[in-house]
Every structure is written in structure tokens, then in C-alpha cells.
């Protein structure tokens, strides 16, 4: 089985995790830029963080045979710091030009403030300018309202919903997200957001089109093997290999390949070329 984990904060994880992920089938992943549990107080901290996502973390992952990509953006929590919001939005374009940056993100809402909305709207436009998909975080509190507002802002922006992944969905948000034309992400957590058995019920009810599963593993209680465990739960529930491959590999690849900056060559995944009209799509420019 081949796994593409589209949301894993590897900066917070150990080499044991990389080893276990590779053994579970993870061949590629995306590490979204987010907050670190402790607020940063200067733009320079963001520059160093973005650089580590683009350099050091990519190197660490490669040691375990895993292709590391990232998303770059200003997260909603820290968008509420006025000085940071201005400063980080100013340096983002420099990073959005990089190889291996496959989306703008995580952007979105945390506490539904005006500052968060300003940062989200600005970054949706930056994604359009840099021809990148967007990874949107939805709030843990008042999730339904936050998701609804996110969908309204995407609709009002220049960006095509086909290029937007709205993450951390649950049973109550999935229908609306799918109706919007955006991709629906599910973060499978040990106790909270969503577990693999609930995911299976959602997939049975809503199908596998534009559905994406991730571990969202980070510095909190989380499990980097949750995508593999989701695949196992799908298998137990009677999904076939093709449907499982679609959810844990082809769907995220199709979404992020829209960036033209996925680097999946030399992975020995020859059938990718057939799926996406030649690997130029995967290794370089879009045709």
C-alpha cells in the first residue's frame, strides 16, 4: 500500500515516527505551516520556521525514503497579532515561489476574528497569484459556523474551489464542504476530531470522491500512523484496494499536483504518469 499523508507536522515528530510511517507505506507527505503550540513574537521566527520546512525537514524525511513537501502560510491563531500579520504576509511571496511548496496554508479561522478573516482573504488571493492550492484549517470551536464562513470567502475569492482543501471535517460539515466544490479533509486523531471508524461511516455515506485523510500529527496527542489505520478500517468495512488507494494516495496527489510542484519522481510509482498525463505534471510545470 502506498500512502500520501497530506497533513503531518513532522517538525514535532521523531525519527522513530519517520521510520514507522515509512514502514506503514508512507512515501510522501505534506507538512503544513502552522503554529507551534507557543506563540511566536517576531517575523524572524517565521522565517526560520519556513526555512526548516523547506530544508532541514525535507532532508530528515529523505533519510527515510519519504518525499517531504510543505504548505506555507500564516495560521489564524498568530494572524491575531497585528505586527506579525503585517510582517508575515509581507515575506510570504518569497516563500510561495519555492519548489516543494504545494499550497498556501494552513489558513482559516480559529476564533472567527476580523484579523483572521483579513489574513485568510489576503492569502486566498496570494494563492491565486502564485497558482497554488489552499489548505484551510477549520476551527475546533464553533466549527460549523467557521466552515460556512470559509466557504463563503472561497466563493467570493478568485480561487477555484477545486483547488481548496477544507480540513478537519466531521459528520456535520462534510455535506456542505462537498457541495461547495472544495475537497474535504479528515484529521484522524486518537480521541478527538475524528477517528477511523467514524471516517468509514462518513465514506460509506458520502463516497470517496474528493475525500482526503490525514494524521495531522503534531506536538499534541496524535498518531502518525492514522492514515494506515484508516486504510485498515476501510478494508475491514469492505472497501476494495482501488477505493483505499484513491483515498490515501490518488486524491491528495491529484489535489496537490495542481501546484505543479509535487516531487514524486524516482519513487518507482510509474502508474502516476498514467493517472496524471505524464510526470511533467508531478516533477515540474503543469502542461
Amino acid at each position: 500500500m502506498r500512502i500520501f499523508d497530506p497533513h503531518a507536522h513532522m517538525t514535532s515528530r521523531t525519527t522513530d515516527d519517520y521510520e514507522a510511517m515509512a514502514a506503514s507505506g508512507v512515501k510522501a507527505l505534506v507538512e503544513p505551516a502552522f503554529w507551534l503550540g507557543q506563540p511566536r513574537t517576531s517575523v524572524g521566527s517565521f522565517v526560520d520556521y519556513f526555512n526548516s520546512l523547506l530544508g532541514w525537514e525535507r532532508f530528515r524525511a529523505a533519510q527515510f525514503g519519504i518525499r517531504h513537501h510543505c504548505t506555507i502560510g500564516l495560521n489564524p491563531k498568530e494572524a491575531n497579532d497585528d505586527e506579525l500579520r503585517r510582517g508575515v504576509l509581507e515575506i510570504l511571496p518569497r516563500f510561495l515561489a519555492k519548489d516543494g511548496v504545494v499550497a498556501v496554508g494552513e489558513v482559516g479561522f480559529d476564533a472567527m476574528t476580523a484579523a483572521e478573516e483579513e489574513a485568510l482573504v489576503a492569502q486566498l488571493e496570494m494563492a491565486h497569484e502564485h497558482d497554488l492550492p489552499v489548505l484551510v484549517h477549520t476551527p475546533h470551536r464553533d466549527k460549523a459556523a467557521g466552515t460556512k464562513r470559509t466557504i463563503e470567502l472561497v466563493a467570493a475569492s478568485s480561487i477555484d474551489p477545486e483547488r481548496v482543501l477544507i480540513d478537519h471535517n466531521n459528520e456535520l460539515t462534510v455535506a456542505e464542504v462537498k457541495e461547495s466544490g472544495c475537497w474535504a479533509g479528515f484529521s484522524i486523531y486518537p480521541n478527538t476530531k475524528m477517528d477511523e471508524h467514524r471516517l468509514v461511516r462518513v465514506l460509506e455515506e458520502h463516497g470517496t470522491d474528493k475525500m482526503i485523510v490525514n494524521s495531522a500529527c503534531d506536538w499534541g496527542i496524535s498518531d502518525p500512523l492514522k492514515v494506515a489505520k484508516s486504510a485498515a478500517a476501510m478494508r475491514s468495512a469492505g472497501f476494495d484496494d482501488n477505493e483505499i488507494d484513491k483515498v490515501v494516495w490518488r486524491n491528495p496527489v491529484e489535489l496537490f499536483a495542481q501546484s505543479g510542484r509535487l516531487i514524486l519522481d524516482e519513487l518507482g510509482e510509474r502508474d502516476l504518469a498514467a493517472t496524471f498525463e505524464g510526470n511533467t505534471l508531478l516533477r515540474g510545470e503543469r502542461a
Partner: protein
Amino acid sequence: MTSPDRLLDPEALWPPLEERATPEGIAWLRESIDEIAADPTAIRTRFPMAGRKVGREPLDPDADPEDVHAWTIDDAARTLMLAALGDRVTDELDELYRFGDGAERRGLLRALPYLPLGDRALDLTDDAIRTNDTRLLAAALGPYATAHLDDAGYAQAVLKCVFSGVPIAPLDGIPERVTPDGSRMLAAFVHERIAAGRDVPAEVWIVIDRHPPQDELRAIESELESPFNDRRRAAERALAGRAAGDGDASKARTQATN
């Protein structure tokens, strides 16, 4: 080390590049170089794009993609872009490194001996040598480091290479830059590894035997009499590597660094 720069000629990179990159990639590179020559700030957006526009494979088609010393197509493209800045390269270099991803930093470090910088880029090579990224470490130890690093810095960098698994025989400054202290430090490291029952690459002897350090060599040889089997075996293996290298320059440079 204080002699005027003898710069490498970036024009020499064109023939291998033209052989390896697509015509579209070459056209994009030429257009980028013209734009950078007219407006140096254009390099800020062109530099990050080199991998996806021109290519990321080894410049030498026979090179192993895992070889940390092998130049890549984007390294050559980035070197040509930096060379196009001419004397204005110092205005952009630090920021390109600061905002560069792993591949951009590697390309920039490889480009240093082609650029009129004097010792002004030493902060960048020092930074790269401090990292644990083996490709950056290898790229930082090219001809620029040979010309500008001080003896202590060079010896520490070579030791770090052995420690982190970067082959040292292909380094530009080996064996010319090896000092007695560099030989001694590496021999002490070999002894430490043998005492742990571990192996060392045979190429360490190129450095150690440049200025054979008697005390450390005696200590290594005494491990052949160790009461511990694993230490004896480790000493035998290490010294066998020394014997095998006798009379052989064993300086296997990669073609791309020539």
C-alpha cells in the same frame, strides 16, 4: 589563502548543462540570465524556480543521485544566474541564502568559487558547515572553502564530514589542506570508533597519513591486542583499510567537481 581570487569560469558549465537540460529549460535559463543582468533583483524570484524549470537530476548522467558531491542541473543553472550578477552579487547573496531552501543553498554554496567575493561569503560557508544536512556540508567544502577557511576550521569540517558520512576523498582541499592537527584529530576519532567496535571509511588514511601522528597511531595499533574481541576486529578492519590504500592516491573525485 590571502592570494587574490582565482575564479572558476562559469562558461565551462554550459556544455554539460546543454547536454542534460531540455531546450525549454535552457531557453528559460538564458532568458533569466538576461533579465538578471539587466535587473539584479530579478534573481529573487528566478533563483527558487531553477529546479522545476531546468531540472534537478545529476549534471553528470553517470553520477549516483545519492552522491552528495555530485553537481545537479539546478546547481549549474543557479551558478550561472549568480555569475550574471557580476560585481553586484554581494547585494543579493546573503538574502538568497537566508531565504533559500535546501537546494537553493546548495547551489549557492557550489557557485561561490565562480564569484568575485573574496572572503565575504565565509559566514555562509560557516553556517552550512554548522548544519547537519550532508548535502550542504559537502557543497560548502568546495574550492571556496579550500581557498578561504582557516586551518582549524578546515580540519573541523573534514572531521565533521567523516562523522556525518560525507565522503572526504572527493573534497577539493584533500589532501593539500590537511595539517598535522587535522591528521591527529582524525586519528583520535578513528581510535574512538575502534574502541566502540565500529568501522571507519578507508579514506580516513588519506588524511591521517598526510602527517602521521605517532601517539594516536600507536593507540590504534594497541587495539589489535585488546582483550575485547569487537575492538580487536574493528582495529583489524580499520588497519586493513590503511594497507589497501598504500601506494594508491585513491582520490576519487567526481567528474562534476572538476
